[in-house]
């Protein structure tokens, strides 16, 4: 099997995922972490921007830490489709030989990454939560395995680029600095609409929320049976952001952008309240870094209690309102004096 000359490859690339000009938050998180890796390697940080009318996104990537933004700007790229994006990316990798490529672990990012690693014969590690550089200058991509009980380190020593998808919420986003210098370079578009294999018939996307920045999170699970009022009321009393298990998301009760877990987001709030959530490994992985965890569940044997600091065994439809009342009372100075 042909191996590549790894020394020919340089620079850390971050795929800036945008849809209609809106950038996925995880892209700015990766730009911050990419800056750290590029500095450690003594290489440039390059933002890869693909879309239509995305020069502004390229400029913002420079403001947020990129030395250079490569912009592939063409109507063929809006909205996202795996095949034209993959083809454009393959071309750029062949031409410019990046060392490291980071992609957000969103549905789009994972669709895209899986597609591009094959033609590039790149090593691709999924859903990383830590990234580092070893003493030989190889990327060390770490990801939880077996429900977060194990952290596996994946390396790719003989192939380039070293690619990783990274979960949303594990790194702090890079802040923009309008003074920052850098180059926005338009690259040749190598994709033709006539050659594409897919067509997007309809796309319906609402505002997305960012639960990863919240100090307090109240998450609803299958136990709510879609009746979210008690959970929303508790979130209100705590001034917390609403999140959810995958069950609640799959049932359509809560939007996917609020999903916590392996295939959702990683949150690290001061307080995490799991309401009617069983505590499946895939869920716990996304909330294990919370400071204090509270579980409300009517099944005393639910695994969530093993991952909680405080647990109440009870019906969420009784416990949530009682807790919300109590918290509101505690806020009331009269009550404190009394």
């Amino acid at each position, binding site marked *: 099997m042909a191996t590549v000359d790894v020394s020919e490859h340089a620079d850390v690339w971050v795929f800036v995922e945008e849809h209609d000009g809106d950038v996925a938050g995880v892209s700015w998180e990766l730009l911050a972490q990419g800056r750290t890796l590029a500095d450690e390697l003594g290489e440039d940080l390059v933002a890869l921007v693909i879309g239509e009318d995305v020069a502004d996104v390229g400029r913002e990537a420079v403001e947020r830490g990129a030395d250079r933004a490569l912009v592939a700007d063409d109507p063929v790229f809006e*909205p996202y489709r795996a095949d034209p994006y993959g083809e454009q990316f393959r071309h750029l990798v062949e031409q410019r030989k990046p060392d490291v490529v980071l992609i957000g672990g969103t*549905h789009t990012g994972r669709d895209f990454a*899986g*597609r591009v690693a094959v033609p590039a014969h790149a090593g691709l590690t*999924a859903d990383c939560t830590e990234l580092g550089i070893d003493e030989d200058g190889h990327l060390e991509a770490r990801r939880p*395995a077996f429900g977060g009980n*194990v952290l596996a380190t994946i390396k790719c020593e003989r192939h380039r680029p070293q690619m990783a998808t990274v979960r949303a919420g594990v790194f702090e986003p890079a802040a923009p600095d309008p003074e920052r210098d850098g180059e926005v370079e338009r690259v040749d578009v190598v994709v033709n609409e006539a050659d594409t294999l897919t067509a997007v018939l309809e796309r319906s996307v609402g505002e997305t929320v960012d639960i990863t920045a919240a100090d307090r999170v109240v998450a609803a699970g299958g136990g709510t049976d879609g009746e979210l009022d008690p959970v929303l009321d508790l979130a209100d009393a705590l001034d917390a952001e609403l999140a959810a298990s995958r069950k609640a998301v799959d049932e359509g009760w809560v939007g*996917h952008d609020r999903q916590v877990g392996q295939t959702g987001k990683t949150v690290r709030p001061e307080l995490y309240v799991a309401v009617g959530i069983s505590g499946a490994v895939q869920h716990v992985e996304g909330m294990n870094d919370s400071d204090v965890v509270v579980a409300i569940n009517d099944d005393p044997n639910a695994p969530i209690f093993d991952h909680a600091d405080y647990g109440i065994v009870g019906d969420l439809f009784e416990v949530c309102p009682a807790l919300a009342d109590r918290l509101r009372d505690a806020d009331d100075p009269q009550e404190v004096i009394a």
Partner: protein
Amino acid sequence: MPDRWTVVVGVKQVPDEDDVSINPDTGTLDRADAAAILNRPDRNALEAALELKDEVDARVVAMTMGPPMASPVLETAVAMGCDDAVLVTDRAFGGSDTWPTSLALAETANYLDADVVVCGEETTDSSTGQVPPGIAAHNGWAQLTYAEGVEALPEEDQLAARRDVEGGYERVVADLPVVVAVAYGENEPRPAGLHRKIYAETEFEPAQVDADDLGIDEDAVGLAASPTQVGGMETVEPVDRERERVDTAAELTERLAEEGVV
């Protein structure tokens, strides 16, 4: 394009993740006792494939890559209603990461003249989700991942799917051949019928193919062709939680106040 579609479903045997545990004394992983089961998201893939069979009379063939030991998942697939099943097995495949795995499965799809390949969203043991796009990329085919519902358009030789995307959904139509990864939990997998079950267990034998049958150079698969290597596994100390049961809202509020979080 063919009169009758061939739909190939990729399935995998995995350890039951609820059985994989950390031995608290040694801090090591206990997966030896874990039962081998059909990867749960693959049940959704099988259901989606069998719905295509109902819809357009497609021929549905299940494929799995692994040692002969892995073939019970093919029996499950046949019991659910797949017409046939293929075990993709060769020592040369040992140690494959997602790159060679998707190559072997892409070649199997070619070997079976697949029009549609249906997979689960990801496996519960390695959870990369990279194999379905990998199969599509190896063959230069279209892909539809995170598919919530699949609709056959046989007149146009196309398949449409509703895809789950951040903050919403989209509907995408793809030319055949196409690889579909079905979002976990998006349909109700049908139970196996009693007669099919008996047939799968007693009479059915899956066909076997190896690297040679698929025209795969042994150097193109296995550990040597895998770009990634596992450089180490650290057991992570489980997060130390208080695990305290409280009885009332008042008591809980008190504790949270002590913690300084309310």
